[in-house]
């Protein structure tokens, strides 16, 4: 485990000034549906933060508001602020392409492109004109190594990405996100379609990634949240019910709702 000074901190204790991601009074609507209500959340640099809650509580919407992927949904409306390193990304002239480059995203189902393994990883650096030739090869290799996939695929980089297993595909997607040198990685239930062995590998990978990146992971798997995260946020019906040190949230939940959820009374 990483060193965390505030061992038993609560939500308020986490309202520190050096947050990597700072969500303030965030509201999101899809049409008439008010999906997120007044969310305040500060996420620290180089930690793993889990966002959990029953399905439909808005967890996915919350992480998608951090890289402005909600903008792509027809009829979505966002009010409030999300600061990344002190810059409000909902400011009018934000360069969303640059923003999304700096924030990697891994999705629920592995979604490699119908291209070769190499091309999948090289896609990001290529469109951002970050590297070419030998330099690009290096980025691909480094990213695959970081995603703990290199040894398995180094001899078949030019095979189709679909030739990989589900767990491998998900790690490829992580490598693809790492290739554009992000600082934050958002993961939307990355293990929900994987078997236990593949899940374990991804979780181990996650811990290592948090040494370098700020990781936000959405999960409805309580054990997973307990295993991998430093901090846990509990969302219910679009509201942030509880947020704090993972251990504290699980052992000593302050909200009745959180307790009920953790003990499996609903969810």
């Amino acid at each position, binding site marked *: 485990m990483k060193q965390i000074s505030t061992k038993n901190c609560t939500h308020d204790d986490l309202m520190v000034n050096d947050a990597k991601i700072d969500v303030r009074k965030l509201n999101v609507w899809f049409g008439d549906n008010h999906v997120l209500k007044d969310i305040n959340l500060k996420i620290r640099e180089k930690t793993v933060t889990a966002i959990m809650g029953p399905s439909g509580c808005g967890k996915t919407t919350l992480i998608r508001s951090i*890289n402005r*992927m909600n903008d792509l949904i027809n009829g979505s409306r966002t009010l409030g602020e999300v600061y990344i390193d002190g810059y409000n990304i909902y400011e009018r002239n934000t360069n969303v392409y640059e923003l*999304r480059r700096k924030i990697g995203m891994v999705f629920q189902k592995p*979604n490699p492109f*119908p291209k070769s393994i190499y091309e999948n990883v090289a896609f*990001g650096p290529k*469109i951002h004109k970050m590297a070419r030739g030998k330099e690009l090869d290096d980025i691909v290799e480094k990213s695959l190594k970081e995603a703990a996939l290199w040894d398995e695929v180094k001899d078949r980089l030019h095979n189709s990405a679909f030739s990989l297993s589900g767990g491998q595909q998900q790690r490829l997607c992580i490598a693809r*996100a790492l290739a554009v040198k992000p600082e934050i990685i958002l993961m939307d239930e990355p293990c929900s379609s994987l078997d236990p062995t593949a899940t374990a590998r991804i979780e181990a990978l996650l811990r290592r990634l948090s040494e370098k990146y700020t990781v936000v992971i959405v999960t409805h798997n309580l054990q997973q949240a307990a295993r991998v995260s430093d901090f846990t946020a509990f969302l219910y019906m679009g509201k942030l019910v509880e947020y704090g040190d993972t251990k504290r949230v699980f052992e000593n939940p302050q909200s009745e709702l959180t307790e009920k959820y953790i003990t499996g009374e609903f969810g």
Partner: protein
Amino acid sequence: MIGAQKEELIIKIILWIVSLISVSSFFVIFLYMFINGSRVISLEFLTTAPNPIFWTGGIFPQIIGSLYLVALCTVIAAPLGILTAIYLSEYAVDNLITKIARFFIVTLAGIPTIVIGLFGLAFLAYRLNLGISLFSAGVALSFLTIPWTITVSEEAMRAVPKEYREAALALGATRWQTTWHIVLKTAAPWIMTGILLGIGKALGETTIPLMCGGSGLETFIPRSLFEPVGSLPVYTFIFATQGNVSSAYDRAFGGSLVLILMFLLISVSSLIIRNRYQKKMRT
């Protein structure tokens, strides 16, 4: 009252017979054309020009003319169709403009070829002074295949899973980068299939080239876009209806068979591409 089992049997027999009739009707037509056409086709028939005075000669200018027409038509229809499809599938939200555009695409797809031909003749050839020419006919033919290209391309692009687009956009790709590198690359074989089927359609079309392309009896290959162009369907039509001598009918058979073979070649290759693509998508 007959029992369900017996009814089932009777229905089955009826369905077999009716299906046999409908499928065999095409078989009979093709067979008829093959038998009568193959007697006519020879190297000479394929490589010489027709002799419109004695209703003899070959179909060389007509084969080349048909290819020219189809090429010109595709050069116009494919880019326009694909651009429209990209706009409808990747860019436009379901707004009023999209709805209007879709309505007009359906309308354009339904315009009878005689109307397109009449328009091409009166507007393109006479009013714009483009003449009865390769150009007039090629443009008019593209009106026939544009809606077709749009529909097939849009379907192909919509079939590309949403997850691919999300992954690309989340990496910071712009909409166009996503469309170009991911959507179009993935949908390309299908779009190709659509374009090939459009080519087959344009190739077999008679009315439009008849009205604004040329008489079908051309003994030369057009040297510019603004010269009349012969084409196989028009040749077949003229030889079949104006000749009234056995040599003319023979040549119409020859023209039909060559047309069928070219059409089959294009259609079958589009089917092969489609099947390969489907197999690839599954693995």
